[in-house]
């Protein structure tokens, strides 16, 4: 491995660590649900390691617990994870043009809300080593948390779990606020997102929408409106 690639990989691992800490707390509570679905610690570890989707896994384990059909599981995965389609699409634009298809596919597999967040925040083109490093650390902690949750159940006091689970949102905030400060259009989009997301969770009828569906619908609507009102200037920062 070239020294530069190595240091980018290590940088990714370092940034993946706080993500992994948040993951551990969340996947710990996910493990408690997985145990109800009948998963063993190993199944939980491997399933979480290969899937890496909080809302998606939560939905699937709840379905397994009630003995739902395979078709329902497919539908659940599609709806809760459709946002990854948008995120991967956004990432296709972050690569230097000489990045191989295999690496692009592997980076796509790294896409979670958080790893995507830090990848899109990476200055300039995204070197694949960065998400790989972040993914390795955070996914291992995500999978471990699930397994520990399945075995240990409810040993952590609830207020500790609550405090930990806020970590993920803290990272989201750290990603969206700096560009909001620099670019007023981003800032206004973020405020609109907060407001509409909250409205959709309290208004009658609309609030029946699952959180996954709400995320997809609002993302498409708000980003489309922002793109119409304030189109970004085309600048090609591909130096390759």
């Amino acid at each position: 491995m070239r020294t530069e690639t190595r240091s980018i990989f290590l940088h990714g691992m370092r940034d993946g660590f706080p993500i992994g800490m948040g993951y551990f707390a969340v996947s710990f509570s996910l493990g408690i649900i997985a145990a109800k679905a009948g998963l063993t610690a190993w199944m939980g570890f491997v399933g979480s390691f290969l899937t890496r989707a909080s809302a998606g896994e939560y939905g699937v384990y709840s379905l397994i617990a009630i003995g739902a059909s395979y078709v329902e599981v497919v539908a659940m995965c599609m709806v809760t994870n459709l946002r990854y389609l948008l995120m991967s699409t956004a990432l296709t634009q972050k690569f230097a043009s000489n990045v191989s298809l295999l690496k692009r596919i592997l980076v796509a597999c790294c896409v979670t809300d958080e790893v995507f967040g830090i990848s899109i925040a990476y200055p300039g083109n995204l070197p694949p080593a960065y998400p790989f490093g972040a993914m390795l650390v955070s996914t291992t902690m995500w999978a471990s948390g699930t397994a520990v949750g399945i075995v240990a159940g409810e040993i952590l006091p609830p207020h500790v779990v609550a405090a930990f689970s806020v970590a993920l949102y803290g990272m989201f905030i750290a990603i969206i606020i700096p560009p909001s400060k620099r670019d007023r259009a981003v800032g206004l989009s973020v405020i609109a997102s907060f407001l509409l997301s909250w409205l959709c969770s309290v208004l009658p009828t609309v609030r029946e929408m699952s959180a996954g569906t709400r995320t997809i619908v609002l993302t498409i609507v708000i980003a489309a409106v922002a793109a119409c009102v304030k189109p970004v200037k085309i600048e090609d920062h591909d130096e390759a």
Partner: protein
Amino acid sequence: MKHSLLIYLFIMVLVTNLIRVLPMTLIRRRITHPFLRSFLYYVPYVTLAVMTFPAIMEATSSPWGGFIALLFGIVAAWFGWGLFPVAAVCCLVAFVCEIL
């Protein structure tokens, strides 16, 4: 009908990762269409914002704990703190709100 746990998990792994990989195999070049470029520019921030609020208020036992953690996080991020410090501030604030 008895369903197999392993088939359930296999479906979950397969479908979730296919969704991630699909755009990478279809889109190899720079998108030049101005609307699409602008749309993709806004997507990440909008998605993360939508997922943060009001969800952060459901993560804590009282919605206020999450809300106050959000406010502290925004202030810390505004002053240029990094991922980990902002996350730590939010956890700390949430923890204090939980025990009060």
